[in-house]
Structures are given as structure tokens and as C-alpha cells.
């Protein structure tokens, strides 16, 4: 493949354009109606390129991308499952795609019905009473959920409850969301097996605790078997349980967070419900609550009246709005299509297949990679780097070497419980052949690390760019073309 790394600005030639406009017969008039102070004094510096320039540029760049459509993407905690094309087809139907959020609800009954049905379907899957689809992504859902928690305590006049308990293995977004929601974070320790230490939790519970944030299975992919006891303790102390839905995939249709005692949760539609994730987004992070908390959910809501008509509703006890209009509707269409495609029976097969795939990789690789916690995992698991630490080959090196072999790297250096974490989540959508290919390559990299460690340390060698200077990238990112020129 031809090397290509240009910016569209580098293709620009003064005066080149891909269109021809007729002479402007009203020249001057439009400009005069705009106050001088609001007019541009110098022309915008847009690239001047022809249509073939533009098409070739972006087509070439798109071929440098790596996504679920090009290869295996075992990024732990991200559930990079395949995005079925039927979802895209549904979301692109003109009757949906051309809607305007300010249209009268009488003219968008079909869209509101989909919205309403998805609220209901998620509530049924989660074992909770009601869902809002407004939040735009997972962490936005966490913030919304924590604001529900905060509003619940405040409306009862219980204003002392400002602390949220977060496990030391939690997703980094959990403590961050709690801070943004104006709450303080208290850490609860994990036991050596990675699950929450109930004895460490007990002394933290008092009348200042607003609630606890958990994900189950936890970030090590292990099911928190003491969840019922934890729920009981937290509820008795007057707190609420928040479920981080990032790890919902293995439980779909089998275990409901509501049944485990959770009061509030978010779901990442772009993980569990197969909508594109990452650069292919946008995301959607619906939030569900148990009975008694519905009134605090953000506005607006979609409801059904006695005649079966759908309408947009604003509740007076709501915590307010967290989004413009009703959220990312296109994403919701895709998630709803996914739920209908699978149906009640098949959705139960997602978790077992994801779990089987993760355990197959784990057991196949544990001779070469250090498995800190033995036992059956759920949808993902964590290695603490290579078993043989004497070679000096790190998790980062292994991750980079995987790129040379055409695989996306797993999540690395998370969770923070281990120094060399490597978090692998294959999802249910991968075939045995793909898993075997990945396992072979991981074995091969381990052999290379033992026989020729420098080869692995210098990886990647086949990618468009080699190992990046992450320190400089983090400290002095150059994000504009002009700044690049100035640096030359």
C-alpha cells in the first residue's frame, strides 16, 4: 500500500476549487445587512482542493483506520462487539433520519413509539422501573445517575450525605463522575481475589454516605458474589447502589441489576447494545432507576397516554435537563434494532458466549501470561503482563507488537490493581478461528520476548507510524497545522 499521511491543507493550491457558481446578482446586499463588527476582515483559510483531491484524501486516510469492521478488537471494558449492518440501515431510513427535534409530537408518533419502547425494553432487561434515554454516553450516564442519587437525598432533607464509595478497582470514570456531581469519593479496598472487601466496607458506612458505585462483574471480570450482602449493608446505612453498566454484557437476559439490589444504573448502548463505539460513535448512556426514584430522572421523557398516543413530558421534580432535546436518537434506533433482532430468547445467549470466549483465551494463554486471579471469569479478564519478567518486555511492548500482527491491542495498565495489567475482552461476536489466531499470535509474542526481547521492545515495525513519543504527545500536543509549520 502506498504511504499516505498528508493533511488536507497540504493538498491546497491557491485558486483550485471543485465547483462553479453563477455570478452573484445581489453582490454587496447580503453583506451590508451584517454589522461591520461581525464581518470577517480576512478570508477563512480553507483548503483549496478539487473533488478528486478530497475523495482520494479521505479514502486513503480511512484505509489507515482500524475498527471492528477490519479486525479483532479485544479492548477490555469496552465491549467492542460487531456492529450489525441492519442497525445502520434502520437508522438511515429517511423517515427517521430527516426528523427535526422541534417537530410536533403528532407528526413523529412512530419515532416516539420507538423511543418509548426502548425505555421499556431497557427497564425490563435491567429489572428497574424507568429509564431516561437522554444522556449521551457512559460517563454522562454516571453523572446523571449520581445527580439522581444526590437529588433523592436532598429532597428528603438528608443533606449530610455527600460521600460516594468507589472500589479501588473501579473504572476511572466512577470517581471522576462523583466529583463532577459535587460528591466526595471514599475508596473501598479489594480482597486478593479482586472482589470488594466487605469487612473494609462496613466501617465506611454511616449517615454521610450517599451511596456506592459498583460494576458487576467487576473490572477483573469476576462476579461479585457478595453483592446481596453489600446491597443490604448499604441500604441499611441509608445509601443507594449505583450500577456501572459498562460490564452488563455477560448478564444480558440472565441477571438483572435491579434484582441484585441496585437502585440506579446506566447502560452503554455503544457497548452492550452493539452501536458503534469510539471514533465511530456517538454514544448513548441511558439511566434507569428503581421504583420511587422515577420522578428525579432528567427531562424530557416520552410517555404514552390512555389513548395510546405518545407525548413528550416534563416532570416537575426532575433534576433538570442533561441533554439537548431527547438525546442521541440515531443511536437509540440502532440499539432498538439490535434488541428486536435478537429477541427475548437469543439475548440470553450473548452472555454465555462472551463468557466462553473470554475463558477460552484466558486458559489458552495463562502458561505464557501471568494470571493473577484464577477461576472462571465472565466476559473479560486481566493478565499481569508476561509470566517471565526477566526479559524486561512490558505490557506496552506486547500491545505494540500485537499491532504488527494486525490485532488491536487490549486495554493496558488498567485496572490499577496490577503493574502490568492487560485486559482482554473478546465479546460473543468472534469466531473460534479468530480467537485461535489471536491466541497463536500472543504465544508467538511471548516466544519473541524470550528469544529476541529487543524485537518486541522496538515494536511496532509494520504500522504507518512507529512507537510514538507518548510523553511529548501528552505534554506538548501540536493540534494545528499552523503550529506544525511554526515548529519546522
Amino acid at each position, binding site marked *: 500500500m502506498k504511504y499516505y499521511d498528508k493533511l488536507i491543507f497540504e493538498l491546497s493550491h491557491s485558486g483550485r476549487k471543485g465547483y462553479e457558481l453563477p455570478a452573484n446578482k445581489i453582490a454587496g446586499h447580503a453583506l451590508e445587512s451584517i454589522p461591520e463588527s461581525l464581518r470577517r476582515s480576512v478570508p477563512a483559510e480553507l483548503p483549496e482542493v478539487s473533488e478528486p483531491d478530497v475523495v482520494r484524501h479521505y479514502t486513503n486516510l480511512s484505509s489507515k483506520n482500524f475498527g471492528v469492521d477490519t479486525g479483532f478488537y479485544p479492548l477490555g471494558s469496552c465491549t467492542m462487539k460487531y456492529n450489525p449492518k441492519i442497525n445502520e440501515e434502520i437508522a438511515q431510513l429517511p423517515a427517521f433520519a430527516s426528523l427535526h427535534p422541534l417537530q410536533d409530537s403528532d407528526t413523529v408518533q412512530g419515532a416516539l413509539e420507538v423511543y418509548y419502547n426502548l425505555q421499556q425494553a431497557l427497564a425490563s432487561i435491567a429489572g428497574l422501573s424507568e429509564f431516561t434515554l437522554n444522556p449521551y454516553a457512559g460517563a454522562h450516564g454516571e453523572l446523571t445517575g449520581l445527580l439522581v442519587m444526590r437529588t433523592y437525598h436532598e429532597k428528603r432533607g438528608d443533606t449530610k450525605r455527600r460521600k460516594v464509595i468507589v472500589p479501588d478497582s473501579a473504572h476511572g470514570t466512577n470517581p471522576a463522575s462523583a466529583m463532577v456531581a459535587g460528591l466526595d469519593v471514599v475508596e473501598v479496598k479489594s480482597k486478593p481475589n479482586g472482589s470488594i472487601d466487605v469487612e473494609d466496607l462496613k466501617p465506611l458506612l454511616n449517615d454521610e454516605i450517599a451511596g456506592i458505585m459498583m460494576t458487576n462483574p467487576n473490572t477483573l471480570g469476576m462476579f461479585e458474589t457478595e453483592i446481596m450482602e453489600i446491597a443490604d449493608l448499604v441500604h441499611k446505612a441509608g445509601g443507594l447502589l449505583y450500577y456501572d453498566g459498562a460490564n452488563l454484557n455477560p448478564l444480558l437476559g440472565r441477571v438483572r441489576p435491579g434484582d441484585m439490589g441496585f437502585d440506579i444504573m446506566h447502560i452503554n448502548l455503544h457497548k452492550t447494545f452493539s452501536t458503534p463505539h469510539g471514533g465511530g460513535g456517538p454514544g448513548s448512556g441511558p439511566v434507569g432507576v428503581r421504583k420511587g426514584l422515577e420522578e428525579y430522572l432528567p427531562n424530557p421523557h416520552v410517555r404514552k397516554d390512555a389513548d395510546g398516543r405518545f407525548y413528550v413530558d416534563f416532570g416537575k421534580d426532575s433534576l433538570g435537563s442533561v441533554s439537548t432535546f431527547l438525546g442521541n436518537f440515531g443511536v437509540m434506533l440502532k440499539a432498538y434494532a439490535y434488541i428486536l433482532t435478537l429477541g427475548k430468547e437469543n439475548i440470553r445467549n450473548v452472555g454465555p458466549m462472551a463468557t466462553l470466549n473470554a475463558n477460552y483465551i484466558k486458559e489458552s494463554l495463562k502458561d505464557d501470561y501471568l494470571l493473577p486471579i484464577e477461576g472462571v471469569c465472565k466476559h473479560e479478564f486481566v493478565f499481569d503482563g508476561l509470566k517471565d519478567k526477566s526479559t524486561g518486555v512490558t505490557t*506496552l511492548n506486547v500491545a505494540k507488537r500485537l499491532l504488527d500482527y494486525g490485532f488491536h491491542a487490549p486495554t493496558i*495498565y488498567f485496572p*490499577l490493581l496490577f*503493574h502490568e495489567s492487560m485486559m482482554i475482552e473478546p465479546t460473543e461476536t468472534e469466531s473460534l478461528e479468530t480467537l485461535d489466531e489471536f491466541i497463536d499470535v500472543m504465544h508467538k509474542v511471548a516466544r519473541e520476548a524470550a528469544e529476541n526481547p529487543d524485537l518486541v521492545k522496538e515494536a511496532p515495525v509494520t504500522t504507518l507510524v512507529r512507537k510514538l513519543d*507518548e*510523553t511529548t504527545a*501528552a*505534554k506538548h500536543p501540536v493540534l494545528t497545522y499552523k503550529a506544525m509549520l511554526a515548529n519546522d
Partner: protein
Amino acid sequence: MSKVLDNLRYADSHEWVLVEGDIATVGITDYAQHALGNIVYVDMPEIGDEVVAGEEFGAVESVKAASDLISPVSGEVVEINEALEDAPELINEDAFANWIMKVKLSDAAEADALLDAAAYAKLCEE
């Protein structure tokens, strides 16, 4: 392996302390900088801030993760290492030479309760 200096005291959260008179110099250990990887930012307290033993006084960000800094001693911050503002990577080069803050101790006995070099070296091996 990671360096441990004999003349320092250590916290199990991987900070080191050098006590001279009523001034304690605080930094993170060589083991900590190894574990963090390339450090890109050090969030330091301000001069005049009160720090409390066992509580957070700042954070270190590396390309891998952000970690809280836990103060091993209590007292008032009298100096911070301004060189780290522009060159946080100095900690990677020599974690013991590149301290983070100096604290006027409110309780000198606190430092005595910290780990000595042998105990800390053992902790790092575990």
C-alpha cells in the same frame, strides 16, 4: 531493581521523607516512578497549604495513569519544587534528587513512625 536510599523514611504509599530539623522534604520513590512510567505532570500543593499525614496533597500523571500523592507527614508547605512544573520527567531521571515539596512539621514524631529503608525495600519486593 529499584533504588532505596538508607537515609530516608518511607510511606507504604511510596513517598519518601527526609527530615532535617523541623523541615521534611517529600518525594516519590524510585519504585513509584518505575511503576508509573513516563511522568507528564505533577500536581503540587501551594506554598502555605496545610497537609495532613495520610491525606492527598497532589497527584502525579504518567502516560499510564494518574495517581494521588499521599502526604507522609503533617504541617505547612514551605516550598515546592518548581522545576517539576516544566520538567516533570526529572522524577523519572532521579526520584530521590527531585523532591516535590518541603513541609514545616507540626508533629516531628510522625516521621519516626514511617518505614525505614530495609522495611520499605522488603515491601517493594512483595
